[in-house]
């Protein structure tokens, strides 16, 4: 007889209001996204066009889903791809595996990989699901590549970057305690995100959008 009680639970739920919200029904506008939504990744460039990725594989090392594959190579001395000795020669993310945990962004020492707010992308083949370096890297203007199966809307490119602290310039005591930021192609130096305390106090969302 106990199983009938199970059916009763199901039956009662039919008349409840669903807790899920409809999203992008039809061709309407996208719903606003939470500030910290993790979408698909981009590989960023410095303002001078150099790639930020140095092929260090820390993202791949930290990835719990093992979805990132990176290989480094020597920067050609005459035509370097990134600052320093090493650059990311191969960079692939398998979105069939990625859980968008953002640990890769945390691990990245150069703010090279960040996540956009885009999650409206679906693919029909395994090859499409594995994003290559070419697809992940921002273009000459600093904008993410729009792949055919992705639903980019005007203005969405703006929310592509992270806010990781960069190295403070050494030596000059004038800058003691101040943070230096690396500029980004297309966006320059982004305003820093305030710390938790100040945001709680002001009640604002923190980072200007």
């Amino acid at each position, binding site marked *: 007889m106990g199983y009938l009680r199970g059916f009763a639970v199901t039956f009662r739920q039919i008349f409840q209001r669903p807790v899920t919200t409809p999203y992008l029904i039809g061709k309407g506008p996208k719903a606003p996204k939470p500030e910290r939504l993790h979408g698909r990744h981009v590989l960023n460039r410095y303002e001078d066009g150099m790639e930020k990725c*140095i*092929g*260090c*594989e*820390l993202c*791949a*090392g930290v990835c719990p889903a093992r979805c990132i594959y990176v*290989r*480094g*190579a*020597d920067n050609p001395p005459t035509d370097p791809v990134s600052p*320093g*000795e*090493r650059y990311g020669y191969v960079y692939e993310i398998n979105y069939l595996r990625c859980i968008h945990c953002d640990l890769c962004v945390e691990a990245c*020492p*150069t703010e090279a990989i960040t996540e956009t707010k885009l999650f409206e992308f679906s693919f029909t083949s395994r090859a499409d699901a594995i994003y290559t370096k070419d697809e992940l890297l921002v273009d000459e203007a600093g904008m993410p590549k729009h792949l055919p199966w992705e639903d980019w809307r005007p203005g969405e490119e703006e929310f592509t970057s992270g806010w990781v602290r960069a*190295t403070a310039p*050494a*030596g000059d*005591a004038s800058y*003691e305690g101040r943070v230096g930021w690396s500029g980004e192609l297309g966006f320059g130096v982004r305003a820093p995100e305030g710390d938790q305390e100040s945001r709680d106090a002001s009640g604002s969302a923190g980072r200007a959008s």
Partner: protein
Amino acid sequence: MADETSTQVTGELTITLNGTQVDARKGELLIAAAERHGVYIPHFCYHPRMRPVGMCRMCIVEVDTGRGPTLQPSCMLECAEGMVVDTESDVTSKAQDGILEFLLINHPLDCPVCDKGGECPLQDQTMAYGPGESRFVESKRHHEKPIPISDLVLLDRERCILCDRCTRFAKEVAGDPLIHFINRGNHTEVNTFPDEPFASYFSGNTVQICPVGALTATPYRFKARPWDLEQVESTCQTCSVGCRVAVQSSRNEVLRYVGVDSDPVNWGWLCDKGRFAFESVNGDERLGEPLVRTGGELRPARWSEAIASAAEVLQSTLTAHGPEAIGVIGGARLTNEAAYAWAKLAKGVLGTDNVDAQLGDGLPAEVVLGLPSATIDEVCAPGGTVIVLGPDTKEELPVLFLRLRHAVLNDGVRLIEIAPTATGLSAIATASLIHHPGETAEVARALVGQPGLGTDAGGVNSAALEVARAAIAAGGPVRVVLGRASVAESVSWTVEAASILSSIPDTSFLMALRRGNVRGAIDLGLSPGLLPGRVTLDGGRANLSGLWPTVPATPGMDTTAMLTAAAEGHLRTLVLVGADPLADFPDRDLARRALAGVETIIATDTYLTGSSSLAGVVLPAAGFAEVSGTTTNLEGRVSVLSQRVTPPGTARSDWAIASDLARALGVDLGFASVEDILTEISSAAPSHAGLADALASSSDTDGVVVPLSGPTPADALLSFTVPTSDALLPRHSYSLRLVVGRKLYDEGTAVHHSPAMTNLPVGGALRLNRYDFDRLGVAEGDLVRVIAPALTIEAPVVVDPAVPRGSAGAWFNQDGLCAADLIDITAPLTVLQVESLNGQGAGS
């Protein structure tokens, strides 16, 4: 042996380590004693295989020797009775933290791009104990980013923490003091001398022992991060020393070898050729599918087709001409298991005894097996005398050279060198007896003869002989490192010399054979007249009766005889098991005629070589790091080889190829796995009886030395008899005796298919003493006319002070002048005439 780790080490004195009484040995360094008792003291400059210098100061700990606690570097301090050590006191921690901060202030934050990141002692120490933030706000020390200090090694001076490990290694271990500190104080840096690269055969070791990423190797640079790598421990088969290595791979590609410290063998060191030969495992030209000659050309084929084709050739030769018409050459590249499988196929199935793993450049099996043998440790034991009668160990067996060098410089071993040219050991030899080529036996005879005769022998003056005799007379055992110093002369003189030296009391021999597993191949029957387990055909026949379908009745031919027979049309089918006679046989003219003279060649190999490209069937074999099994080094030490990656394409293990060929011939070898073969070896080969159990219970790193049990009954062994030595033609003034040795970097597969090393072979030239230069009226780099028995060619000459007057040196298997073209194997000694091209004849 096996229970060494579990044996209680009884110390001669007692120290107090962090409040606990522990034992220590007299003379033992505190840092080593602490580590032995499970207390790790952080360090950078200390390396157990090198002299301590106490430079990095990281290992300072509080020590009280009765006068109150003071900070002392534990790497310099020998344990003393009653010493009280505190490695965790506040004073110790403060001092160590301070040192770590000092090391970090000028160390660049390169960790994300640094090859060492992830396996870096400095990084590990910093993660474990270091400060979270730097108090150093000034700009760091800057140098030009990596500068090449040799073809294989890059130096990043910014990362260097000046621990003196690489420089100490270069000076003390390798004997190539080509890198040193320059400048002083905070500007101190490691560098080479101007225009003198760190051209050492051992440079890769500095990369391995560097405690930071200051030294990186070009072949591994940026290839992977340590956490990508998976590794197995294996034994290097590049030469026969058998160094233990960790084979590391990522994504099914071998990316690095790292030396493993095997106490009886390599002490953690590797030579650069062994270390960087991993590139040839991944070579683009690796054979990945069988090839069968159809319509005059080698075309890809399926395995079934290739095996059937090879079996058909073998079967038809057997039917038409009997087993004596089949020859099998090679096997030194194989594992012991594959060698046994091939021996079983050749001798037990095909029934031919024309089987030889050596290519006319080694020693007869009765010499290898018949003389009392010594291990490397026995050779290098303090207080003895070592006679090196053979090749230049620095060129052919580099890590053996390091062990010998250490023994001479640190353990008071007296070294006598008997060689036709000066070698890497000459500078440290007690006596360096450089003799006329072909007169080795004269020197040996003079050496064991009565002292004070005051006569020269074989071109060696009496004073040098007297020094050598005194060294032997000084007592202690005599160990002979025996091999072929020159392949341009008959082996008989070397054998005769060995037999003369064996008359010295308490003498034993280490066989300086060159190829990877040549010792294992001989042990397991890939040699004419031998069956697995170091026994003769007659001695071993009974033992194999249930296991092998047949056993050859009479001893067959060695490689030289086989090639001669082939050239004359008596040998119909030749099987090359990883052998390339065109490149490796001393007489290339004979090899060429032989390969042209046989009806069919069947080859198994990892690469298509000059010889295998002439074959009718080529079977792709899995190579090093792609197979598991065991291998035997020059001492007879059997150690485990491990598979790390899969072979390219459909390439297969050599034992499986042998098995398939046998099956196609209608015989089941009875092997389904490597373990099956090891089990059969353990019962069928007398010298290897119980090998499987012994290996299972021994340490993987050190392996076991065969024979495991007592000696095999004498009648089953090859008896060592001194052959009649070839008569030597008298020297005359206008001819030069040829000496052919090898360089570490030659045109062999390992170097040729490793991009990082392809530029390293020196190239071929005729090397003469300055005296002969003047006599011939030629200058350095001139082309001269070289008149050899088989041909006359023009070749460049260079001055080589290592070559004595009246001799001419040529390197084997080099581009340009190739020594194999000059050698006439039918002559006991190849004699050249050299003429200047500008009209002056030799001897004028």
